[in-house]
């Protein structure tokens, strides 16, 4: 072998783990923000719903006791933001990445699979932070006056993210990409209507309400409302429901996720 170095002379090696994960997070975020349909889902819909339903008396948001409509709606929109990004957006994006061999190809790079999952989570958290900042700013401009402990809010958002990510990844890793696309959008609409986001659950008949209360979106929006609207300290029951969904979803996804 010659010792002179040519252009392609082998010099293999993985980049440091932190750099790989940071690069992957940045790319995933860029891909998501570049996608028009994803932006519609994660930014446009929650923003429009918040502005529209705060201004117009279309839905009956229940007893207000001197509070504004935005005080009911803002926590629901935060829950919707988590649903749209961690579940619907992530499921659709990951489903198509699997379909087009992106997950497979990345599996041949030095980035470990768990590193890819960390990056996906990082991407979801970055987008959620942007959503929360935007929705909070709009809500304040509509006269929102939140209560409660911000740490409890953050904890609920994180648990909701874990629960929805698990379910989204389970879908993306087991169904065909087209099926994931259809199902993730359908679930989004169903949970938007039946998950206490804009329609209070006590508008539903008792039996239905009891079941709906157990959905992760209801637990998240109800928990956020307890804290932000009513100033509760920590809604443990709702947090508990989210933990169960998170363990279930992430566990099943880890077990059944197929990379190609």
């Amino acid at each position, binding site marked *: 072998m010659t010792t002179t170095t040519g252009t392609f002379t082998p010099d293999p*090696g993985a980049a440091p783990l932190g750099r790989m994960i940071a690069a992957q997070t940045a790319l995933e975020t860029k891909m998501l923000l570049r996608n028009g349909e994803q932006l519609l889902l994660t930014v446009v819909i929650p923003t429009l719903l918040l502005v529209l339903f705060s201004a117009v008396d279309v839905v009956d948001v229940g007893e207000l006791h001197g509070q504004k409509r935005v005080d009911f709606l803002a926590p629901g929109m935060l829950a919707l933001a988590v649903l749209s990004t961690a579940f619907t957006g992530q499921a659709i994006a990951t489903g198509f990445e699997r379909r087009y061999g992106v997950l497979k190809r990345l599996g041949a*790079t030095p980035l470990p699979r768990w590193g890819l999952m960390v990056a996906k989570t990082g991407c979801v958290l970055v987008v959620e932070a942007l959503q929360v900042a935007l929705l909070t700013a709009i809500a304040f401009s509509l006269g929102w006056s939140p209560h409660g402990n911000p740490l409890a809010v953050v904890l609920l958002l994180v648990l909701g993210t874990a629960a929805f990510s698990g379910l989204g990844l389970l879908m993306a890793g087991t169904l065909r990409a087209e099926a994931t696309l259809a199902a993730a959008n359908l679930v989004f609409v169903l949970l938007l209507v039946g998950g206490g986001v804009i329609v209070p659950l006590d508008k539903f008949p008792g039996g239905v309400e009891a079941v709906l209360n157990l959905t992760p979106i209801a637990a998240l929006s109800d928990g956020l409302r307890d804290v932000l609207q009513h100033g509760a300290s920590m809604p443990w029951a709702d947090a508990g429901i989210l933990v169960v969904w998170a363990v279930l979803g992430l566990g099943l996804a880890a077990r059944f996720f197929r990379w190609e």
Partner: protein
Amino acid sequence: MDSPQPAVEIVGLVKTYGDKTAVDGLGLTVERGSVTAVLGPNGAGKTTTIEVCEGYRRADGGTVRVLGLDPAVDGERLRPRVGVMLQSGGVYAGARAEEMLRHVAKLHANPLDVPMLVERLGLGSCGRTTYRRLSGGQQQRLALALAVVGRPELVFLDEPTAGLDPQARRATWDLVGDLRADGVTVVLTTHFMDEAEQLADDVHIVDRGRVIASGSPEALCRDGAENSLRFAGPPGLDLTAMVAALPEGAKAFEVARGSYRVEGDIDPQLLATVTSWCAQHGVMPEKLTVERRTLEDVFLELTGRELRA
């Protein structure tokens, strides 16, 4: 870098999908620093074999060693050292070519210069176009660039020139040549026999999940049935004296009226024997040509089928 181990060693590989046997006792060895072509028709088991080497699929039987390691267990150690070009896909639909290349470069410690690769493979013309809107040829070239950007020791290229126009094909061939010159081991699959002939130090012809012939393109074309020499002359020549002068085993006959064929190991000596016989008999051998067997012919002889069928 000189290591006693071959770059890839496959012994008795078996892979089944349900009741279908895709790879059926396949064996081959890839020497370090060589370009090895796995040549065979669609469905022969090329992709399956390569993907077992890449760690994507588990063997049902046999052993596979890549750079001395078992890809099914040692994936983490192998991945930085091995470059992979999938037969298709592998890039975010919304990513731009250079963006994806820069990204994969960032996952490696000492990547190649990205602008150089972009230039070499003509990816500059992709500009801001996202992957889903690139032409098939541009997607292929990006996949090739992604396989080499991390400065691997060994690259697996699955059908690197399928669907390329002649110019892009040439660029790919040149790149493979440069990889080899710089000491990178290249394993590629192809169903183009001319590609295997042009590029490869070693060719393994695969059919129905088995290697049916291995060797350098020259050796494969030389072995078995011989090459031939043809010429045209006056009809009805008596070739007895020529045959007597030829080396043992060589044959000469009139294939059609005035059209002659000599079969055997066609070397300069044999050529001289034929032309001196012509000179002695006052025959001007018109349209004298030496016909070499191609890998296509080799495949046809071994299987009774056309490679591109």
